[in-house]
Every structure is written in structure tokens, then in C-alpha cells.
């Protein structure tokens, strides 16, 4: 019964929505309404306005930066809620839960080589976010993953010493606050048409170009990496 109901609802929904799609403009055509002057403006002016070679980065960190700010706070909120839900009180249980530290020497030696490579790759994606595909989110995720690998391979004690909870949360809050203040400065000067000093855009194509883009990318990367690491540790044992 339930199955038929679900199939019925699905098909009705799909048919209703497809009736709408039927009338929408054709896929891939040049003169779709979506490709209007706004898109053209972005393509034409992005490099000039923001100093980004990657137009998408220019849009998310400059034209529509407010979205990105709110979105980082979505991530922050989620990590806070997961913290709220899954964090165990210290000393509530005996901490001698049998932890499976992998004892293989091969793994440790290989990871010594590989993990820095992953981190360098992540850092590259963050730092070149305004020049090539990628940016804070992807790069931050990659760095976060490398931290997770550390934890898997070397065990909890090692990472706790390296990245204690208090330091992580300080970095997280500090970077997101700094992000808010930096962007807030830019928003308010822009909104009031104030001619306060703005960072210079530099030569497009250089790594040190694009004004706020590079620091913003780094901050976003930091936020994402720490959040990802939080998620992992909290889901894994609830202790951080």
C-alpha cells in the first residue's frame, strides 16, 4: 500500500513539474532569458572589478559576498549544533575506550609523505582560488580531510595534542569573526558610497591580487577545514 502511494505521489509530482519544464526555454541556447545582461556583465567586468581570473570566485566573494558570509554562518551553526548534540562531557565515562590505533609502520611512513602532499594541494587550491577552479570551500574540505587522516592513522592522543579543542574553536570563531568584520567594512563602505581606502586589486593573474579575495579565501578555507574536522571527531567518538 505504502509503496503504491509513494509511486503515485512521485509520478504526480514529476508530471506536474515536467509540465512546467516543457515550457521553459531550450537547454543550451544562447538567447535564454537566464543569459541576460547580468551574466554578460559578470563575464565582462569581473576581472576589472574584483581582480579575479575565476569569475565564479569573483561572484561568490565580491558581488554576492553577503550570501557567502551567511553561508559560512550556516556551516558554523551546523558545527555548533553538532557540538551541542554529540559532545560528551569530559570524565563522564572512563576515557579508556579501546581505541584502534593502526600499528602498521608502512602506513605511518607512507602517510608521512602523502598527508603533507594533500595539505599542499589543499593550500594550493585555496591560494589560487581566484585564479583557477576551486577556492575556499573545496580547499578547506581537502585540508580538513588530511586532518581526519592524521586522526585515523596516529590516533586520538596525537591529534588532541596537536589540535586541542580550545585552540580549534578559538581559530574557528576568530576567523569567522574576522571574516564578518572585514566584509562588514567592505559592505558598509560600499553601501554608503564612502570613499574609504580599499585594498588595491593588483595585476590580475598574480597570486597577490584581487584585494580581499585572497584573505577571504584563506579564512573560508580555515573555517571549512575546522568544521569538517569537528564533524568527523564528533561523529567518531563525541570527544574532541
Amino acid at each position, binding site marked *: 500500500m505504502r509503496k503504491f502511494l509513494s509511486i503515485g505521489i*512521485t509520478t504526480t509530482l514529476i508530471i506536474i513539474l*515536467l509540465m512546467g519544464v516543457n515550457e521553459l526555454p531550450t*537547454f543550451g541556447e544562447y538567447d535564454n532569458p537566464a543569459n541576460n545582461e547580468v551574466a554578460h556583465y*559578470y563575464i565582462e567586468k569581473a576581472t576589472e572589478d574584483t581582480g579575479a581570473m575565476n569569475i565564479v570566485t569573483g561572484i*561568490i566573494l565580491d558581488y554576492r559576498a553577503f550570501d557567502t558570509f551567511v553561508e559560512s554562518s550556516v556551516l558554523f551553526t*551546523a558545527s555548533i549544533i553538532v557540538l551541542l548534540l554529540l559532545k560528551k562531557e569530559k570524565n563522564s565515562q572512563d576515557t579508556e575506550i579501546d581505541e584502534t590505533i593502526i600499528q602498521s609502520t608502512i602506513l605511518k611512513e607512507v602517510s608521512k609523505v602523502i598527508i603533507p602532499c594533500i595539505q599542499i594541494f589543499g593550500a594550493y587550491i585555496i591560494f589560487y582560488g581566484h585564479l583557477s577552479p576551486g577556492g575556499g570551500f573545496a580547499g578547506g574540505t581537502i585540508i580538513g580531510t588530511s586532518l581526519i587522516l592524521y586522526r585515523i592513522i596516529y590516533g586520538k592522543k596525537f591529534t588532541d595534542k596537536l589540535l586541542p579543542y580550545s585552540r580549534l574553536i578559538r581559530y574557528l570563531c576568530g576567523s569567522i569573526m574576522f571574516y564578518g568584520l572585514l566584509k562588514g567594512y567592505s559592505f558598509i563602505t560600499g553601501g554608503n558610497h564612502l570613499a574609504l581606502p580599499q585594498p588595491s586589486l593588483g595585476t590580475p593573474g598574480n597570486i597577490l591580487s584581487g584585494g580581499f579575495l585572497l584573505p577571504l579565501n584563506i579564512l573560508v578555507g580555515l573555517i571549512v577545514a575546522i568544521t569538517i574536522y569537528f*564533524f568527523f571527531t564528533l*561523529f567518531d567518538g563525541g570527544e574532541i
Partner: protein
Amino acid sequence: MEGLINNYYETGAIILFGIGFAILLLHNNLIKKIIGMNIMDTAIFLFFIAKGYIIGRDAPIIIGAHKGVHGYINPLPSALMLTGIVVAVSTTAFALALTVKLYDGYGTIEVDEIIKMRSD
């Protein structure tokens, strides 16, 4: 009908959306529900991206010389959906944490069993 065949990406996205919707709404298992939510979200992202695509254009990254307005696809949907992906991940993480907690509390992740337990 012709519109559907022309817009085959959108059609596929809508079908995926419907399936994800049905899984989210009607499936009994919480983990499956969350997977359904993810499918629904990615389907919408696909819809958006398909709307931004233009046949024969490059990705919106300037390499070397600028090719002018007619060289690149519409960059806006990509930017929007980048935001969307992160939102989806946050929601997923929250829902999964809740699932773990629910399991700790009730000992099951089947929705109707959880609802039944109210009467006890």
C-alpha cells in the same frame, strides 16, 4: 513533449527531484531519508547548472586572453550552487547527528517505530 526532449537535462533533474522527494517524505528509515534529501538537493543543483550552460562555451575562468562576452557560459548558477552545496552539507551533518542521538534514545532509526513509542 518537444520541450521535454530539448530540455533533457532539466527533465532528468526533475525526475531525480521527484525521486528524492519521495524518498525523503515516504521512506521509513532515517538514513535513507537523509540520502533522499541529498538527492533532492543535487537534483536542484543540476537543474540550475543546466540552465547556465550554453553549447560551445568555455568554463568561466579566464586563461590567457579574455574571450569576450560570447566566450563563456553563465557563471551565476555555479556561484549560487556552490553556496547551495555547503548548505546541503550542513543540513546533512545536523540531520545525521540527530539520527545518532535518536538511536541512543530510542534504539531504532525506523520512523514509525519511533512514533509508536509515544503511546508507551
